[in-house]
């Protein structure tokens, strides 16, 4: 079936199985490979995208569900070559190591700060609890979020 939606502000139209995973459509058909697969079962958050303002695991979203939706992937976070404050903070404060959880983690942090512009430590922990990182022990990620909103 044909599905129409907006990705990072651009109208896109794809042909696919209704139950195809949004993750695969983004990566394989639209070549937006910044969205990663870590577990394929909604546990790790590496495939995080934002759909109509809601943060979701794209490995659990069937294509049929996003007709007419507005989707933001990691490729759409920086505007006109200008990094988002969260991205800059992840670079400056060690929030990214191997980088594979980073796209999802950045989107989760962007979403958190949108809902709660000055989160306390507990808010940050809970806001990012759906995203797993095996490299950082999370300390530098928390710090990056704090630095991002302090800017």
């Amino acid at each position: 079936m044909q599905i129409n939606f907006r990705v990072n502000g651009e109208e896109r139209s794809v042909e696919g199985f209704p139950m195809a995973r949004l993750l695969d459509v983004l990566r394989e058909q639209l070549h937006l490979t910044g969205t990663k697969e870590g577990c394929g079962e909604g546990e790790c958050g590496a495939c995080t995208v934002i759909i109509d303002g809601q943060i979701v695991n794209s490995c659990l979203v069937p294509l049929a569900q996003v007709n007419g939706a507005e989707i933001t992937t990691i490729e759409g976070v920086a505007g006109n070559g200008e990094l988002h404050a969260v991205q800059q903070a992840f670079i400056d404060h060690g929030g990214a190591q191997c980088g594979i959880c980073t796209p999802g983690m950045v989107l989760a942090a962007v979403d958190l700060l949108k809902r709660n512009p000055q989160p306390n430590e507990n808010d940050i922990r809970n806001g990012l609890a759906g995203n797993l990182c095996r490299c950082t022990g999370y300390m530098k990620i928390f710090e990056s979020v704090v630095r991002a909103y302090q800017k």
Partner: protein
Amino acid sequence: MDHPIGKPVPRKEGRKKVTGQALYVDDLSFPDMLHSVTVRSPAARGKITNISFGGNIPWDEFTIVTAKDIPGANYVALILNDQPYLAESFVNHPEEPVLLLAHADKYLLEEARRNVHIEIEEQPAIFSLTDSLVKKEIIWGEDNVFKKFLVDKGNVDDAWANADFIVEGEYETGAQEQLYIENNGAIAIANETDGVTVWGSMQCPYYIHKALVKLFGLPEEKIRIIQTETGGGFGGKEEYPSLIAGHAALLAWKSGKPVKMIYDRAEDMVATTKRHPSRTRHKTAVTRDGKLLAMEIDFVIDGGAYCTLSPVVLSRGTIHAAGPYVCPNVRIHSRAVATNVPPHGAFRGFGAPQSIFSLERHMDKVAQTVGLTPEEFRRRNFIHEGETTATSQMIREPVDMDQLLTQAFQHSDYHAKRERFARENSASNGRFSKKRGIGFASFMHGAGFTGSGEVYLQSVVSAEATAEGIVRILAASTEIGQGTNTIFSQIASETLGLDFDSIEIVQPDTGRVPNSGPTVASRTSMVVGKLVESAVMGLKQTLAGSGLLPDKYSESEFKKACADYIAKFGSLKTSSTYQPPPNVHWDDEKYQGDAYGAYAWAIYVAEVSFDELTYEARVEDFVALQEVGRVLNPVLAAGQIEGGVAQAIGFTLFENVVWKEGRMANNQMTNYIIPTPADIPPIRVYFEENPYAYGPGGAKGIGELPMDGAAPAILNAIENATGVSFTQVPLMPEQLMDTMSKMEQAFT
């Protein structure tokens, strides 16, 4: 940035990682590319009697590879070469690869995989190191033993008679999955004319290179291995990628098309390597004054079905088994044994977390027996400069564990908390209260390859300059998140006095970079970093020697000198080969001598709470204090420690591999739990800097260290909170409940 060493220089490849532009292996695609899967053994051990292809599958569209299709030798070249790429007639573990399939349609591939039927005439299998030790079945060699070591210092047998106390204990650790968030994967292009090229997620391009030379029987220059951006390794991508790269390459060779092989999480967890489970027995002789007289240690690790890296893991675990203490008589007897589970392999710490866990739990037990505090007992036995380790290695650097302990206790408020928790715990006599405790571990971790390993490796790093004055570092050492790119750039920039951005790190590609050794063993900064330093120094000397560069120069003078040199001589490239520090001697036969060029020294303090209602033990605060030589980049270094501690907290309280007939039964992130952002306590990292003369800028190794200390510190803290001495990890709430409720029953 001037003098970048010691500064929090931002990660070199940070921008492409935060924008999603970094390309990992699964992000790559080639025209006409096939996907592929591995068909594995359905049984743990037995003879392959038949393979049949069923279902409504268009089998003629598939590329099918079995052991018969292997052009060269059917083994993964590593240490003993006992692991086949594909089982020919016999399987030794329940995930053993038997057959490979490739097809353009990855959904059809999954269906095809389910319709390959491998029949096995089963033979008895063994799944525990205990069964292996008692030779319930002989499944490997003559006695199931891959490797054994004996470290013998002084005379242990004569020491028992003089002991005031003899304390015995037994400790166990479980398997642990590395759980890098990027699964294993490779893409291969292979044909007779061009040879074999593999792109993949890996730590050690030259390990794969060596293995594929044998697998294909091709000359070295016909095999080319290229590392793509790698989403974490932790040892899990040290030796395993040789297997997956070979599998993709065999399919590419037969099909004539590019072949991509990407494991999903379930396959990655069930089939690839994990941390070796272990059992350690201690027998310790001590005087009434709390001085160690003798330590007898029996250390056993479960290697799984094939030898792979078990001898080296065993070696590191053995050497670290007696810890940062001085004891005149030490005997360590260790064995790596075979079982019918997928081979266990490299994982951060490499045997040391297992033996250090046992020792540091045991030291608390010995202290209690003698009637000393854990602190006082350790203080009476810490090693100092001029004293010798278990391998009789004389410590030649100033080491002050006493001072480290004092500082760590200040940072963690240890004494006040110990007193307060004791008071509060005994006051809360109501049921279902929360108990608190604090405990610590003291330990060391050797950096670089063990013994003569670095000498055998003969690692090489090259540096070249372009006519534009850009300096390129050529090394096989991989960036896997730990910061190789940034650290190498800092070292080169500092050495040459150039801008950080004037340094480029060449993508590891065996067609282009020399073999700087594997990215393992906390060796990249300390050992390879030193080679980076001397290789770029060579550039400077070459330019100066040809009269093109003055002693003191500006960045633009350097660039001009490069341009002039290249105009005159064509190119500018220098290389540096490993030279051991002076006075390092190691006896491989007796296992005595200088085991490592340098050690990092550490005290980790854990504060825990134990909930008597839910049986949850939780780490509430964590202090990690270590002396690691000079810190090259404080943000990256702290990131290594924090990540390692978090992984070690997982090892201790969260990560339980459930085994069923040799197979991991909980091979999903849903039921194999790693710590989330909500689970990790504040990890407070402190560095004591004591520059190491033979490390670049004074650095020692750091990567594995943080995996060592958390488990014993946490269990020591749990004993402090509950009064119960637990002796194994992972320590899950179920086991806490089981033990604690039995104790409650016994008292009521």
